């Protein structure tokens, strides 16, 4: 038997969560160190997993399959494709960074920090499981279970309105999740009708579900994912959660955990219900475009920095969803790539804003101004993170946004054109935020703003470096993602369209002559 | 034999019992009404036993009587307990638990 890499990858942070929780009360520093060590260890395993991913190999690799609940046909089935491995990488990279960024946050909330860190590792384990699950119910279980630790992280450690935000977060997502449960059962019932009741994705994808049924089930899945992702008009939980959660928690939430929603669209909703996905694609594309514009406009209208970034995420998730449901190779590759990049850039933005908040104890934009002078490094980091938020080449976000637009343009011209407005609005909300906080005369209350410290630099530098490096050398990442997108789309029966004018054809003809 | 009159009687008794529970405030009388309902059922059982020509229904009727007696014991215990505490046997007085 081969080494169960993926199970280990899940087990390590889970174990870390338990051990962190077991650290005796009052030894918070030790708890943090344990948590960080396990996060880094997980990163190590993730690197090992990524290294073993064989480009050009099987679609799903490192697969494991064991019966879990045989009475219901549920399996502990894991495996990664290109999309999964990329997102696992994101999760593993993000966790130690976020852990380090949240170092002082728990103290600020006057609660036991070990719980906070243990919950973070628990979320990491669940998120990774979601990205590698090859069993529908396994996915569903972690999809839902993830809400609980996140709920506690928001509710216990967040800002003054945290109870409201946490409750809203949980209820929205639980609502979507429960509706999805009905659809999950529906799929299962289909497989039971087909003879072998099973939750194994491989079995379910082989089903030939009637179109009418597909539509209902697809809607059930999409509701959950659209709430999680979040797509307009199911988004209103996110700004509250983003504003009230601690900055690094908000970073992990919208940067990593919410990707499970868009991942679910790619890995479940589309391949399980290809016909329905095609039927509903125009509607979802429309919602995605609305999200892009709506999120951006609302971001412009915000007065609270974290809320603003929350709305930018809605806009960006709009792009991700748009690329997925354009149902083109470039669009979907771009979307998956976008998930990674949005993760990195949103985390960067949130943690930097967190650093600002930790200095000034205010989330309000109006309380800042001229920070650039006393804290140039902070401002610089903020600017770079912001620029990646507005998708400036060659930062990684650019390429993904571009691919999404290009991929959408192939199928939905109008949608792509409107979505392009998003890049103007993005410039507006980011640069206006920068202008209001970092530039201008520095007020007395901000004159002594500390610049980035060592810990903070260690948090921010790898993120920004990664964003730049992936942008300049995106090839491997894109290849890996493309590897997963191709088969997904061929499940749906989509093939890359030929260009209208093919130079190679002409050249070939020329040769013949 | 024609069971209908008996059944009608049983139903009337049952309804009277039900009405008694609903209308009377005194716990004892409400309880008696319940007993009346049980006896209406007994009557029905006996009638049907007679109709079908087997004794199952009559056996049931006997058992029900026994059980009704046990119920009386328990019921009176509870009502007496309440009466001693509250000096009232009105079921409407016992309405602290609500909403």
């Amino acid at each position, binding site marked *: 038997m081969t080494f169960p890499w993926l199970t280990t990858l899940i087990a390590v942070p889970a174990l870390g969560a338990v051990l962190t929780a077991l650290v005796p009360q009052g030894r918070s520093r030790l708890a943090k160190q344990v948590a960080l060590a396990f996060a880094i260890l997980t990163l190590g395993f993730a690197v090992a997993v990524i290294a073993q991913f064989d480009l050009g190999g099987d679609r799903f690799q490192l697969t494991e399959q064991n019966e879990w609940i045989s009475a219901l046909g549920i399996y502990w089935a894991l495996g990664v494709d290109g999309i999964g491995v990329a997102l696992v990488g994101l999760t593993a990279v993000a966790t130690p960074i976020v852990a380090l960024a949240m170092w002082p946050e728990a103290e600020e909330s006057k609660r036991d920090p070990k719980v906070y860190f243990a919950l973070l590792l628990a979320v990491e384990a669940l998120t990774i499981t979601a990205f590698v699950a090859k069993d529908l119910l396994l996915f569903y279980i972690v999809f839902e279970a993830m809400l609980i630790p996140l709920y506690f992280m928001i509710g216990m450690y967040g800002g003054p309105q945290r109870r409201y935000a946490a409750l809203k977060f949980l209820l929205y997502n639980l609502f979507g999740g429960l509706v999805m449960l009905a659809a999950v059962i529906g799929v299962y019932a289909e497989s039971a009708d087909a003879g072998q009741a099973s939750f194994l994705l491989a079995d379910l994808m082989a089903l030939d579900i009637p179109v009418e049924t597909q539509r209902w089930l697809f809607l059930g899945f999409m509701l959950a994912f659209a709430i999680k992702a979040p797509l307009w*008009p199911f988004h209103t939980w996110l700004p509250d959660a983003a504003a009230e959660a601690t900055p690094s928690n908000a970073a992990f939430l919208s940067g990593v955990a919410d990707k499970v929603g868009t991942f679910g669209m790619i890995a479940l909703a589309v391949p399980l219900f290809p016909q329905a996905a095609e039927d509903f694609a125009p509607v979802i594309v429309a919602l995605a475009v609305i999200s892009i514009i709506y999120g951006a406009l609302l971001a*412009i209208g915000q007065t609270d920095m974290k809320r603003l970034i929350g709305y930018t995420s809605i806009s960006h998730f709009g792009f991700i969803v748009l690329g997925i449901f354009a149902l083109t190779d470039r669009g979907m590759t771009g979307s998956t790539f976008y998930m990674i990049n949005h993760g990195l850039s949103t985390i960067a933005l949130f943690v930097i804003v967190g650093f600002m908040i930790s200095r000034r104890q205010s989330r309000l934009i109006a309380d800042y101004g001229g920070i650039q002078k006393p804290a140039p490094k902070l401002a610089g980091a903020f600017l770079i993170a912001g620029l990646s938020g507005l998708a400036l080449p060659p930062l990684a976000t650019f390429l993904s946004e*571009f691919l999404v637009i290009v991929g959408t343009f192939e199928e939905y011209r109008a949608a792509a054109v409107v979505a392009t407005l998003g890049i103007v609005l993005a410039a507006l909300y980011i640069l206006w935020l920068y202008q209001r906080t*970092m*530039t201008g005369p520095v007020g007395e209350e901000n004159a002594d703003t500390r610049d980035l410290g060592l810990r903070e630099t260690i948090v921010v530098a790898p993120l920004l470096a990664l964003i730049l490096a992936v942008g300049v050398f995106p090839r491997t990442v894109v290849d890996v993602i493309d590897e997963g997108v191709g088969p997904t789309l061929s499940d749906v029966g989509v093939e890359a369209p030929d260009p*209208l004018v093919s130079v190679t054809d002409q050249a070939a003809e020329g040769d013949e002559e | 034999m024609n069971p209908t009159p008996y059944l009608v009687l049983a139903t009337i008794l049952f309804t009277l019992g*039900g009405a008694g*529970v609903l209308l009377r405030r005194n716990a004892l009388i409400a309880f008696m009404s319940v007993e009346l309902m049980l006896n209406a059922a007994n009557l029905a059982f006996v009638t049907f036993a007679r109709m079908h020509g087997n004794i199952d229904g009559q056996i049931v009727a006997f058992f029900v009587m026994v059980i009704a007696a046990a119920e009386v014991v328990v019921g009176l215990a509870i009502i007496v307990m309440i009466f001693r505490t509250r000096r009232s046997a009105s079921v409407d007085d016992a309405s602290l638990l609500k*909403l």
Partner: protein
Amino acid sequence: MTLTNVVTLGLAAQTEGAQEVHEASGLISTTWLLIALPLLGAAVLLLGGRRLDRSGHLIGCAAVIGAFAWAVVLFVDMLSHDAHERAFSVPLWEWFNAGGYEVRLDLLLDQLSIAFVLLITGVGSLIHVYSIGYMEHDERRRRFFGYLNLFVAAMLLLVLAADYLVLFIGWEGVGLASYLLIGFWQYKPSAAIAAKKAFVVNRVGDMGMVLALASMLVVFGSTSFEIVFAGADGAQTGWLNTIGLLLLLAACGKSAQFPLQSWLLDAMEGPTPVSALIHAATMVTAGVYLVVRSAAIYDLAPEARTAVILVGTITLLMGAIIGCAKDDIKKALAGSTMSQIGYMMLAAGLGPAGYAFAIFHLITHGFFKANLFLGAGSVMHGMNDEVNMRRFGALRSAMPATFLTFAVGYLAIIGIPPFAGFFSKDRIIEAAFGDNVLIGLCAMIGAGVTAFYMTRVMLLTFFTSKRWEDDAHPHESPRVMTWPLWALGFLSVAGGLGLLYIGGGIVDWLEPVTGEEHHDLPLPVAVLIALTMTVVVLGAGVAWFMYQRRPVPVQAPAGNPLTVAARKDLYGDAFNEAVLMRPGQYLTRSLVYVENRGVDGAVIGAATAVGGLSARWRRWQTGFVRSYALTMLAGAGLIVVAMLLVRVP
């Protein structure tokens, strides 16, 4: 198919002698150094921290001068090849390949790009040197040079890219540098706002770029120059027009052409060397480069070309008119820049007949406008950063070097032979007449207006009477600033002649890239030149009458409606504000309201409704046992009735 193969660079349809692109070997394959040097400079300066504060400017200059030197070496090397074998591809690495869409980070060095490279690095070097003096007292000078280097690197990537997407990296890179440099004095809110405005307006243009790229991908399956140009032949005109118009939108953004012109005047908030390098000599001409580079598309897209001509013509008049009314010397020059780029745009829109002239004018404009801006900077340097020309006057004696070089630039821009501007601008006017008399007339009138406003600038600054502020003590700038002025002055004098006649001239040099085409002129060339000169002299004369013959008030007079309009940038900002900003703000505000009350409110409302239901249903639990019994009895009744009446069909 990659650039490593030898393919035709697609102008095959219309131009003879389309040239082949060769894979670079030898010296040429080190083209990447051109970008790497300033990029490295930027990285070192920006990441190096305070310890480089004292030497930063030198590193910055060294990087650019090194790049310039290397560009000269490459240029000389190119000369050793045949005229039609001077296009080289320099492969670097495959950027990505997504679903069959492959983009390679390759460079293309050909006659067009080397011309730009030399301009960028050459003028760039001079401006870097000038900045040593200009920024001497700024504590963030190191950072300034870092940004400048970053700009040079990005601009070089822009002109050396062999793929539209790679070009776009440079495109956005210069946008970023421009943003950083306009807002360099961040503590000034006006600078920060101007920087943001420049970036955002450019982003509107970028929309066009992105959509043009998307269209190319649909049509050609690629964005690399070679595939797009080779395929343009077989593409539908509708698509080509679309792509052409979208690229024009992008060009409008970057080159401050109508209707995206509004940012350029505000961009003068940046330090003057920035205005000279980025907002006059190089970056703003990127739009022209884009159009010329896309010749293969525009050649086959007549409507798009007409649009380019129209945009160019409108902008050249607009810019000139705005330039007439500005009292801020930099803004007057900025209006002039708009106007001159309008000329280039117009020329580029003329197709093969005008491409080379567009580039020609672009380069000479780079010389004399950099000269003028640096001169203006020198004046400001000596006048406590005063920019209001009504506070200048009679400075020629106080700043002789500045005056002389500025005067040369002045003569060049208004097109007095044999100064540089004469040759390039006159060619454009000729070509415009060759295309359409009306356009030609507009171009000619523009020349007259140019003469008017430049004479006005000249007179208000160096002649007329002193109108200085009390504490002004005008003095000549240090040598580190005047030397670049002399150099640029020399180029303003000799650049035109040199480019036109040395070694066959720039037109022949560019011909393999741009093609060549001649239209019949409605009038003989000599007549046209004479007419143009007459208009120019007329314009200058009017200015002389208005400003030299009468005293210049320190306070600007009310002026006629046209002046008022021109002072307000012909209501460009007012239009933007009324049509875009105000409604946008209103939209944003109302959306926030809708979000809180509507979208979120719907959810919360539903929750409240359920809560209300709960509170109402709760009252069923009265606590009276008899009412419970009643509900049971009713329930029993319902169930019995249901049992008797309803069954699954």
